[in-house]
């Protein structure tokens, strides 16, 4: 295909006004709720050094970063996610700040992917990070905030699935399998085919105890089911701690009244590597891909400095939220959107009039096209303008107000007209 200047990069796109409006709705709602929960917004550079962005995220994400050289020959990249930049910011600016620190961001990130069925190569994330606390209350808070945020957007049947990166890691370690076999086992857990899982465990001489733990965990669907799984703390102490952490978080979710929409998925793994504890994913029945997710990452921030700072957080994709909303038939409420066109042979009167209307909080545009009356009304109808004000020499004298939907004209002063439309 020959290059033309009309092309844009694969996986990027233009957003036209109605769509931007929808995105702004999501961003506005999320910003509002994040703030209500005490999170503060931050921004970071779109481009950073690859060393920063690649810290802790794992090779798969690094492979998908848009990398290039800066003027000094250093490798830089467009950000592919926001947790590593936040970890850098915390290390540079906030190490002595009182903990916990609550931060949020709403920004675009970039990932190269061979297909863009799943998402564009540039997409928008809204996320929070709760830094400096490793209590189950912190995990419970971010999970509850994720649920509240999605509901606030208008989504129904929101569901969270929770796994535990540490539990899985410790149990895999306990199997004593080779690296390759661990990958196989992880794959099998993800397949959710119990027969194949059992066959694999038999072939690889799992102890009956470990075998039972794997089976019970992959059968567990609710966080409380985990309580019936018994692991010998003397042998699998760390795994036991992880199980207890899950149950503690469950209790907190009960207090938030959201435990009925939170489920357990032993096989749940996030594609980014830095997670150490509870991980989770949000979904709704109408969309086959998760809307977002997150989890605990207690070892990431220390990679930037020397201080160990535990943290947890999530990111959601605004585009997916919008897809889910439209799949659920959600209609965006169009609020106060009256739009008025002012036209007059007397320019100074017209300029004054638009300013009066705008001061009243109503959208006003000045006729700059110098058309006749009929053409002006035609334009107003196509341009979704509700009223055309044909003004004489003064703002205070009655003007002809043309209602483009009813096709009626009334003579009113601007003041009375604005009162009538509630401006």
């Amino acid at each position: 295909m020959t290059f033309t200047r009309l092309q844009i990069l694969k996986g990027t796109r233009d957003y036209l006004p109605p769509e931007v409006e929808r995105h702004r709705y999501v961003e506005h709602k999320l910003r509002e709720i994040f703030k209500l929960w005490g999170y503060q917004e931050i921004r970071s550079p779109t481009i950073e050094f690859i060393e920063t962005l690649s810290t802790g995220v794992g090779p798969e994400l690094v492979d998908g970063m848009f990398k290039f050289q800066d003027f000094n020959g250093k490798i830089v990249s467009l950000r592919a996610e926001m947790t590593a930049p936040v970890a850098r910011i915390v290390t540079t600016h906030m190490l002595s700040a009182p903990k916990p620190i609550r931060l949020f961001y709403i920004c675009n990130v970039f990932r190269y992917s061979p297909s863009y069925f799943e998402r564009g190569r540039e997409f928008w994330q809204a996320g929070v990070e709760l830094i400096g606390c490793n209590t189950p209350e912190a995990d419970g808070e971010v999970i509850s905030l994720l649920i509240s945020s999605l509901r606030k957007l208008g989504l129904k049947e929101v569901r969270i699935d929770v796994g535990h990166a540490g539990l899985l890691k410790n149990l895999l370690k306990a199997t004593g399998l080779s690296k390759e076999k661990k990958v196989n086992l992880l794959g099998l857990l993800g397949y959710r085919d119990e027969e194949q899982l059992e066959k694999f465990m038999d072939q690889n001489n799992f102890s009956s105890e470990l075998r039972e733990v794997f089976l019970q965990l992959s059968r567990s669907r609710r966080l409380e089911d985990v309580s019936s799984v018994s692991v010998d703390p003397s042998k699998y102490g760390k795994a036991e701690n992880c199980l207890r952490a899950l149950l503690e978080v469950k209790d907190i979710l009960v207090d938030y009244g959201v435990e009925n929409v939170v489920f357990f998925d032993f096989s749940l793994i996030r594609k980014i590597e830095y997670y150490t504890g509870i991980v989770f994913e949000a979904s709704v029945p109408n969309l086959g891909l998760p809307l977002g997710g997150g989890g605990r990452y207690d070892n990431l921030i220390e990679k930037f400095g020397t201080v160990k700072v535990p943290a947890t957080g999530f990111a959601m994709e605004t585009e997916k939220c919008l897809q889910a909303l439209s799949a659920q038939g959600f209609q965006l409420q169009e609020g106060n959107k009256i739009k008025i066109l002012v036209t007059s042979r007397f320019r100074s009167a017209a300029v004054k009039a638009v300013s009066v209307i705008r001061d009243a909080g109503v959208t006003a545009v000045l006729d700059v096209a110098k058309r006749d009356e009929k053409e002006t009304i035609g334009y107003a109808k196509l341009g979704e303008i509700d009223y055309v004000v044909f003004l004489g020499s003064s703002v205070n004298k009655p003007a002809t107000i043309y209602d483009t939907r009813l096709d009626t004209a009334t003579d009113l002063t601007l003041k009375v007209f604005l009162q009538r439309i509630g401006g």
Partner: protein
Amino acid sequence: MKRKIRIAIPSKGRLRQPSIQALQYAGINILEEKRAYISETSDPRFEAVFARTFDVPIYVQYGAVDLGMTGHDIVLEREADVHELLDLGFRKCQLVVAVLENSTICSINDIPAVERVATEYPNLSRKYFESLRKQVEILTVRGAAELAPKLGLAQIIVDISETGETLRKNNLKVIATILDSSCRVACNKIAYRIFESEINELLDKLRRHLTK
């Protein structure tokens, strides 16, 4: 009310008929098979679509369908992040490396550097040769890879072999097996969360048929 559970069935090829049959045994008869449209089934909870075999795992991963009848080899080739809930056991086959019978290449070790490999499975081929530290040039073809050696397109092919008949007919010999495959029930991860009981019921029926 819950929406219907959508199953993708390969529209052509060796997986198509046995997939339809397996579903029949499980009580899901496809009522009217319209081209490229969604077909009703005798079980009101399920509907079916016919899709290109190679696309089924992708449809499943992105939730365009909830379930898909597909080969394990295809799931791996498309690197689809899906559950593989059940091994249906039919269409057992192997992904193999083959060369012409009279070729001097008798094993993987004989493959000269940067040799060309024709295949419908570029991802799996690349990974396989990489794991052997063999540098090859992968040539992606759409079907009929077995013709490539005869035509001089590539000395080596990576292709699916069920009975070995096609390979023999084309004077090809197998020098290595990459993986074993069979037909699987693939499932979208979110769909399984929502429809677990319905899907498990279907799997039980399929299992009962398999053990017969």
